[in-house]
């Protein structure tokens, strides 16, 4: 995974609550067996009409936000299915940060595994952010969002932060604990399925 760097981008205001992963990536696109190429299917049923034409009133089709890396949305984002394809689609589309008052648990965890930073901010701070149309600066190291003369400090679990900043591979880190896993296996009741 690539280390997470400072981001300077305009935000995409996406005012929807309870956005489920079925909307983020509809099921007909879950049949691919690779991790790449999901961006073109992001929010497919909301972005395209039945003839496959772009819906002009859908915000992600607005050319102003084409280069935006930051999605600002509403509560309980990413609820429903555990499909990591939702995160792959957002990443592939160009989003590296998602800001919301709350996230669904599995989606939140999936973001970190793919270099997307999910930031939880209270609704008042989000409203303030939404009023700002120019580029904002987001620095994970100092946990700071700067827009114009203002700034917001956000919270993040320190271990998740380090893993993102350094682009660390979770499995490599876990394998360093191999002795402890072996110790657990020797000293616990683990019932094999096929005894």
């Amino acid at each position, binding site marked *: 995974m690539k280390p997470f760097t400072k981001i300077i981008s305009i935000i995409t205001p996406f005012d929807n609550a309870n956005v489920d992963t079925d909307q983020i990536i509809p099921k007909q696109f*879950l049949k691919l067996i690779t991790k790449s190429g999901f961006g073109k299917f992001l929010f497919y049923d909301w972005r395209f009409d039945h003839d496959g034409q772009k819906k002009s009133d859908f915000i992600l089709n607005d050319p102003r936000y084409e280069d935006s890396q930051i999605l600002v949305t509403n509560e309980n984002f990413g609820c429903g299915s555990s499909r990591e394809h939702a995160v792959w689609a957002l990443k592939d589309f160009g989003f590296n940060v998602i800001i919301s008052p709350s996230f669904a648990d599995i989606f939140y965890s999936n973001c970190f595994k793919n270099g997307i930073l999910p930031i939880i901010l209270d609704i008042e701070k989000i409203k303030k952010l939404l009023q700002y149309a120019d580029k904002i600066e987001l620095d994970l190291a100092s946990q700071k969002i700067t827009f114009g003369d203002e700034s917001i400090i956000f919270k993040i679990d320190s271990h998740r932060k380090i893993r993102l900043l350094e682009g660390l591979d979770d499995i490599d880190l876990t394998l360093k604990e191999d002795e402890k896993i072996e110790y657990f296996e020797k000293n616990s009741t683990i019932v094999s*399925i096929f005894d």
Partner: protein
Amino acid sequence: MSETLFEKIWNSHVVVERENEPSLIYIDRHLIHEVTSPQAFDGLRANHRTVRRRDLTVATIDHNVPTTDRSLPMIDETSSIQIKTLEKNCKDFGIKLFGINDPNQGIVHVIGPQLGITLPGSTIVCGDSHTSTQGAFGAFAFGIGTSEVEHTLATQTLWLEKPKTFEILATGKRKNPFAVTSKDIILSIIKQIGTDGGTGHVLEYRGDAISDLSMEQRMTICNMSIEAGSRAGLIAPDEKTFDYLNNRKYTPKNYDELVDDWKNNLISDANSKFDKSFTIDVNKIEPQVSWGTNPAMVSDVTGKIPTPEEFGQNNEIQIESAKKALLYMDLKPDTPIVEISIDRVFIGSCTNARLEDLKDAAEIVKGKAINSNVCAMVVPGSQMVKLEAEKLGLDKIFKDANFEWRESGCSMCLGMNPDILKPGERCASTSNRNFEGRQGSGGRTHLVSPVMAAASAIAGHFVDVREWC
């Protein structure tokens, strides 16, 4: 110190624990299916890694499988590739697969318990959010993403932040336990605590109204825990649990010893404290019907479609969501639920396609025929459920009433196979999610219990099934 059931399971699976860090938790059971696993196996290959515990890992094919005649070639090439990919991955990495023609094939959350793979007190993961189903056996069972599937394959562990605990106390007795089902209980709970009421928590369902339920009914409740946003749902095991798992294909040889241990340990201590608590009196619950596009948008069958303001109760976000939902569902406020006509009926899914579900639905259907405006299908949760149902003659009851009787799989719960709604079609469904397009682009889903779905199929619109039994 007093501990909740969840805390006991958690504490007995901690491999690494450091202050203010996520813990490394050991995983006892890893179930795999074709949709969320291919990229995980690719990751193993790219990094020259193997599967750490093949003896704790099994796979099946459920999401993509056609539910029609399986001797015919598959029409959908991409589904076929995904299925073949899982077959190859299982062969290459030495994982037991219940394949498309295996008599034990079925929806992953149905076959786990049915084969005795699910065990009380264990940690269970699968790349599927409805893994929570297996919490009905007193296991910590939860859905994970593909990266975590790969992590589990390679290390048999996961880094987790300890979830909080949430007690759901269900008291009272259902007035008509045949017509008011565990599906109605869980829909009522979600209606009240909301789709994010359980976020960051493990729900433990407790109380006499839960003990009263059969194992299959308990599975329906735990299945939909994820629709309240929770990490998992949990019910303490009891004699019903131990009986259910006895003498299954993969029931452990030392089962009696294990049961003795579970009986002593797998219960929340009397003085244990939950982070949150919610009480529901099941005596007051009616059959439920969802009217919107998330599982908290639910009404009593005797009720009406609420106005967005009634639903949102001063919460702007909720009011907006309800407006959007009514537009998508093409429904008007104040319409009585029983006046909503339906085009399709789907009895199936990991929520409600076990034998008891089919038996109850057949009881309603027996000797009747579905409304001529309705297409209806029954998709058993596993091939074993299908076989048992056929032994009881349920297939004949459904077919005589003009239901289609299918092979097992996830089917129209999420429409990854050819079983989908057409745009605008309205479906009474025993599944778990009424999201926009879930059952097919433009399709409209109403979540109900199997008996409600069966009665509605016959009437052609929603009916209060209590009047039928």
